[in-house]
């Protein structure tokens, strides 16, 4: 396959969910490529399998509740390499023969997911559920910072530097009082602020792909405008590609 200039190529992706009436194909043989510094938007009705596809790309979805088949190449590495043998589909009557994954495959999934570590970031639909309510915003941003810099030491200087970077990002996403906000918990902020914080956290990792799954459906028009402006600005300033879902 020709992987020149492409970060992500998806080939014949199928995502199936088990139901009492058989297997429901949420995603039925989708293929696309995403190149560097491009924006891809996926448009569809609700219930058409967009979230399932994105979760499969992030390698979260195999086993329960959904079963994935196909090929997903991230920079010429197949993410579904060890899972090819599990799914056999015969097309005569639309019958599918599937062997369910058990816990052993989760270990292989972890290896595959390690390829994607700190290269993909995902922003979910509901910002209140995608941040841990028991940790402050500062702590969650510091976690992302530690992923980026594995040589992080717990010295006063490096903590100070990390906190400065967090405040810088909070200013970047146009939050008024960054010092106060960074010590607050997620339940004390509004939805728009939280969504922007999620984008900031995902940008601290400096990913090569930013996936956003319906980021603005839970918000009103004004905040969607601010978030889209932010995303546009980030896209122009950094070298990343965006997959956008709505």
């Amino acid at each position, binding site marked *: 396959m020709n992987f020149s200039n492409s970060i992500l190529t998806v080939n014949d992706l199928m995502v199936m969910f088990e139901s009492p009436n058989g297997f429901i194909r949420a995603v039925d043989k989708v293929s696309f490529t995403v190149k560097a510094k491009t924006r891809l938007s996926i448009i569809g009705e609700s219930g058409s399998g967009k979230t399932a596809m994105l*979760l499969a790309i*992030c390698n*979260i979805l195999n086993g329960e509740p959904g079963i994935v088949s196909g090929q997903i190449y991230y920079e010429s590495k197949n993410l579904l390499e060890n899972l090819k043998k599990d799914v056999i589909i015969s097309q005569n009557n639309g019958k599918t023969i599937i062997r369910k994954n*058990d*816990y052993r495959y989760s270990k292989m999934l972890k290896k595959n*997911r*390690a390829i*994607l*570590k*700190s290269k*993909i*970031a*995902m922003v*979910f639909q*509901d910002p209140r*559920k*995608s*941040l*841990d*309510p*028991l*940790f402050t915003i500062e702590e969650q941003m510091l*976690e*992302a910072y530690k*992923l980026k810099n594995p040589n992080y030491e717990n010295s006063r200087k490096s903590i100070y530097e990390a906190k400065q970077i967090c405040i810088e990002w909070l200013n970047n996403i146009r939050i008024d009082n960054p010092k106060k906000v960074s010590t607050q*918990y997620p*339940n004390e902020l509004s939805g728009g602020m939280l969504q922007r914080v*999620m984008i900031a*956290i*995902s940008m601290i*990792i400096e990913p090569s792909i930013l996936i956003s799954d319906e980021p603005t459906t839970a918000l009103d028009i004004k905040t969607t405008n601010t978030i889209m402006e932010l995303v546009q600005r980030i896209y122009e300033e950094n070298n990343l590609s965006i997959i956008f879902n709505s």
Partner: protein
Amino acid sequence: MKKVLRKNILMKFTWKLSYSLMLFITITFLAFISFRLSVNNKMIIHLGNGFIFSDFLSWIIKVFSSMDLGTTLSGKPVFGSLLKSFGKTLMLTVSSLIISFSISLILGWYWSNYGKNFAVQTFSRIINLISSIPLFLAAFIIVLLSPYMVIDITSDTVSTVDILIYYLVPIFTLSIFDGFITEMTNFIKIRFDEISSEQFITALEIRGGNIKKHIMKHIIYDLLTIVNSKFVTLIGGAIIIEIIFGWKGIGLQGYNAVYYRDYSLFMGVIIFTTIAIMIFNLTTYIVNHLIKNKYFIDNTN
């Protein structure tokens, strides 16, 4: 700490303190009434023979001003003899609390991660079996099988192994056989599954962060709400274990009090246990409100 937070915690703490004091007073009042109704001349002299409420008030004031709970049948003061033996029961309960929580955490973790195995299902049956064994029977068997009766800790020729056996065996029997291991592991396993299917965990997984830290914090917050009831049951178990293993704690003294109809000693036992439980509840309350943020407290209380 912020001023508003401090004031808030103080107000809530005083409310909780007054509530627990009210509980304490009603419990002692009920015990007082019940001892008054039973016919015993010595107790009437000790407790008074007039109007109940004034007698009760005077008795309570006497207890807390002069620490005088009366004398046992053998003539020793109740307060002193109970105070000496109280430390052992506390040690028993607290250490077995820690051990049982850690055991159930580890078991719940493994059960949620590897839950589809046949081995894990049989393991759940085994835990059911263990929880259905009564505590006294398990302690009885362990005393028979282990060289416990032979150990004399007050002698000079006692080795470290003997000391370890003397202290560790009762603690482990209490932590394993008090009957709540299945409940705790079930609870922890269910909470593990619930938390690991939340969206922030998947977002963390995609980023590649440390999931265990987040799950552990949630589970510890949940366990802090169970600690109170577990402490109470463990004190009840400690009484049985002291009787069987021969530790000189409050439990053994309470049992002897009931056997020989020593009412004043038993009254002292009641007061000591209620005070211990009260103090434990208050400390967990303070710890909860200090550590947890408002979201958690509002959603659980």
